């Protein structure tokens, strides 16, 4: 079998390393067991913590009997709201300080007798061994006064209210009169969809090792956003930010779940402070479900009206999501519908209910992943009503400009993506009739859907340091959860400076480094690249200035524009110097440059730019399923995605990220769901044995192609890649199932009971 990577070279013209499928730099560490994760840092006085979780949805703790727990040999302390030192309250969310997003909930753990969700931590046991801590935690006996709670999303969803938008995310919109146009349309569909809650389920459960030295806190933690977490911890513990050190060299998967300060992190630090010991708190898998938010469930309506030729006249997409009374934020479920189709009449609205549950949080493509399921399923159903090929229907409605706001697309290649995908997937062999394609006894179905995710940037600070031996050191507090962070930034820096890839070192994952961009919203690579490119430009300028001052330098009198950075130095046809020569001649042992960017400017730019431009990563997802005609078991048998993600820096790691999104989307479509008991808010399946992630046998070879056309408005032309892969996936599966069986499933996951 062949593994397909990028088929075309990137169009930047000068790259040596950008575009290549370079092996990951941390490959040897990760394949030999040398990579140390947060729970794997030894300390001589290490103690272990375990959480006690509330078993009611809402109420007050009237008593908390810790006698039996304290009597267990090896228990150091049992911290409760009655004896724990109080943390300061969590800061309120403010767009003026995005680090406030780190507040996962407003609950001040162990500083209140109030219970706000089933699973809220109400005590922490600290003990000499992990087994002792866990056993003693099981002996803590709380008594409650229960209060009425609202936990059933399906029951509460009709009472949703319009959400308050936040300026960095899209929500509702109106153009023309969509309801009148729908009523008048000769062909229409009007469908109600539902999606369940989902959990990230990174294979590394959240773990923290916390150590205090006076007022200085060192924290080993898998973090997606070190600057946010550091500021949050400093605020909660009343110490300066400079007193908090976060070390996060490896993150065992995150997908949004490690972007905030959740209970485990805070309570590890609190327990370490209270006991004077180094404390490790490794959450159990159930503990992750109980304390780290997941994806909102949704109820959605998509109604489409079209003329007989398949041109949309009306597009209505409304959604209900759920946050919690004590936190959470709306997810942009209708965001992609702003940009997908050229309908003259559009109505988009996002509504929300607040329940007594653990708040939702970011999970890979929050909003777009489930929103594209609804709108792309509805487009497919409209194609059935019209008797039209679903790709053709999409092409007839491909917009020239932003369908709602009239913005310019910086880049739009969905037609090319579908054309290439159709050719490679063999779309022309699809018999358009439902339920007639067979492979032996299996029913075969083919479906498509559009992938769409906005492309943003966050501020990043980067320093680049040139050593006298020609070594280049890139320093930025970036995050590595599997994207190949160090590898891709080394490729970029090597090309910018014209040095060999092996001589570039990248430091990341440490709060002592210049603050990097968060690994959220698919922004990290592009944001850090902007900083690396800027710092490298400054560094080359400084190097040239140094050379020009040196007597006899062949670069005297040269301007930077006349020179090429290559072969480890600055090059001109009539004379070159290596960086090492420049530094040695000047008697310098190093030269350093830095790139800085401010957060407020970023927010303002994002909001302003959104009014004028649409910048997004897009793609065409092609799915083939086989359905057993007796059991209605669905197997995904083939997958192909063609992605327009701008310039691809590393063809190998990029393909892996896109495949990873598709695999998570297959789980979303067919097997995953977090079940919540509608009576008491208890999560019924908080485990990997009852929450069904895709396994090896569920995933076929996934063929990934890139269009590899640089975006003209971003550094190096690159767009984010981490989230677009999951968008459209569930719809492509549902559409393939519709083709195989004739049945339209509107409620995820597509389990066989919904097909029988």
């Amino acid at each position: 079998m062949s593994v397909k990577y990028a088929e075309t070279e990137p169009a930047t013209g000068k790259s040596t390393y950008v575009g290549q499928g370079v092996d990951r730099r941390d490959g040897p560490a990760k394949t030999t067991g040398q990579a140390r994760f947060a729970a794997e840092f030894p300390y001589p006085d290490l103690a272990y913590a375990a959480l006690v979780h509330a078993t009611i949805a809402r109420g007050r703790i009237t008593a908390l009997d810790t006698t039996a727990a304290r009597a267990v040999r090896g228990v150091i302390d049992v911290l409760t709201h009655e004896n724990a030192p109080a943390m300061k309250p969590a800061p309120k969310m403010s767009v003026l300080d995005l680090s406030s997003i780190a507040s996962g909930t407003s609950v001040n753990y162990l500083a209140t007798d109030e219970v706000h969700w089933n699973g809220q931590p109400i005590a922490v046991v600290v003990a000499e061994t992990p087994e002792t801590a866990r056993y003693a935690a099981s002996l803590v006996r709380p008594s409650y006064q229960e209060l009425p709670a609202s936990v059933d999303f399906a029951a509460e969803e009709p009472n949703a209210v319009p959400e308050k938008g936040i300026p960095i995310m899209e929500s509702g919109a109106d153009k023309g009169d969509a309801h009148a146009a729908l009523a008048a349309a000769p062909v229409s569909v009007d469908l109600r969809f539902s999606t369940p809650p989902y959990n990230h389920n990174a294979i590394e459960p959240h773990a923290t090792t916390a150590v205090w030295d006076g007022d200085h806190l060192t924290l080993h933690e898998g973090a997606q956003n070190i600057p946010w977490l550091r500021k949050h911890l400093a605020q909660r513990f009343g110490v300066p930010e400079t007193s908090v050190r976060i070390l996060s060299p490896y993150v065992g998967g995150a997908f949004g779940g490690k972007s905030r300060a959740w209970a485990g992190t805070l309570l590890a630090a609190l327990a370490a402070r209270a006991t004077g010991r180094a404390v490790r708190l490794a959450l159990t898998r159930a503990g992750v479900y109980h304390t780290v938010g997941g994806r909102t469930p949704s109820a959605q309506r998509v109604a489409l009206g079209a003329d007989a030729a398949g041109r949309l006249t009306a597009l209505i997409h409304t959604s209900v999501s759920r946050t919690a009374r004590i936190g959470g934020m709306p997810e942009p479920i209708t965001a992609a519908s702003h940009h997908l189709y050229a309908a003259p009449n559009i109505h988009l609205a996002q509504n929300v209910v607040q329940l007594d549950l653990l708040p939702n949080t970011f999970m890979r493509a929050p909003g777009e992943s489930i929103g594209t399921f609804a709108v792309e399923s509805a487009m497919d159903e409209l194609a059935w009503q019209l008797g039209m090929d679903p790709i053709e229907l999409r092409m007839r409605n491909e917009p020239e400009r932003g369908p709602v706001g009239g913005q310019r697309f910086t880049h739009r290649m969905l037609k090319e993506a579908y054309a290439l995908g159709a050719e490679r997937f063999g779309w022309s062999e699809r018999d358009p009739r439902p339920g007639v394609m067979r492979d032996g006894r299996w029913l075969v179905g083919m479906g498509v859907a559009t992938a769409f995710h906005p492309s943003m940037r966050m501020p990043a600070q980067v320093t680049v340091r040139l050593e006298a031996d020609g070594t280049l050191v890139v320093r930025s507090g970036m995050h590595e959860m599997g994207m190949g962070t160090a590898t891709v930034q080394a490729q970029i820096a090597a090309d910018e400076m014209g040095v060999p890839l092996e001589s570039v070192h990248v430091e990341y994952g440490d709060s002592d480094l210049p603050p990097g961009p968060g690994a959220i919203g698919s922004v990290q690579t592009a944001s850090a690249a902007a900083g690396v490119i800027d710092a490298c430009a400054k560094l080359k300028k400084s190097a040239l200035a140094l050379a020009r001052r040196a007597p006899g330098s062949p670069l005297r009198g040269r301007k930077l524009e006349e020179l090429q950075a290559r072969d480890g130095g600055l090059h001109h046809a009539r004379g070159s110097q290596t960086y090492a020569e420049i530094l040695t001649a000047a008697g310098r042992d190093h030269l350093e440059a830095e790139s800085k960017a401010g957060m407020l400017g970023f927010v303002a730019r994002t909001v302003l730019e959104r009014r004028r431009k649409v910048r997004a990563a897009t793609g065409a997802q092609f799915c083939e399923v086989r359905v057993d005609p007796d059991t209605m078991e669905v197997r995904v048998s083939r997958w192909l995605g063609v992605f327009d993600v701008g310039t691809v820096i590393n063809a190998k790691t990029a393909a892996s990220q896109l495949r990873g999104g598709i695999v998570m989307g297959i789980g979303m479509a067919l097997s995953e769901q977090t079940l919540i008991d509608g009576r008491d808010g208890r999560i019924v399946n908080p485990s990997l044995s009852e929450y069904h992630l895709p396994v090896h046998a569920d995933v076929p070879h996934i063929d990934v192609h890139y269009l590899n056309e640089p975006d003209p408005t971003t550094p190096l032309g690159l767009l984010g890649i981490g989230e677009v892969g999951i968008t459209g996936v569930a719809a492509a599966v549902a559409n393939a199932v519709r083709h195989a069986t004739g049945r339209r499933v509107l409620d995820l996951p597509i389990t066989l009971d919904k097909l029988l």
Partner: protein
Amino acid sequence: MPEIRMKVNGSVASLEVEPWVSLLDALRERLGVTGPKKGCDQGACGACTVLADGVRINSCLALAVQYDGREITTIEGVSHPLQEAFIRHDGFQCGYCTPGQICSAIGMLAEHTAGMPSAVADSGPLTEAEVRERMSGNLCRCGAYNGIVDAIMEVSG
């Protein structure tokens, strides 16, 4: 408290361990051998896979005292072409499930060679479908399954 002796990655380790301590916790917390990972602590994810006398097991479901006198190989003790193949085929992203995937693959190849049947086939050459079936006890949430299968196929072929 029972005292046990195991050979871990070629070195003899003796430790006193309560009878309820899992092999995984004994390795990670008592011996500082942190290559095997804890992902679920109930045998559902495979991140803790180690080789016990060459046979793959979920070390979170094994009690340390049961392995007195046995030889345990974790990823730290592995030196196998699969490791480089994983890198070449990008058979991982975050790296957390990787030690378990590699140990499991080594055990799986030995099982196949020994003629152990699977749900796909009772015998015959190792196919991609076979590898997927036999490796399905090792979850990868980053979704690096394609690269893992490619790496195993390359090394087995």
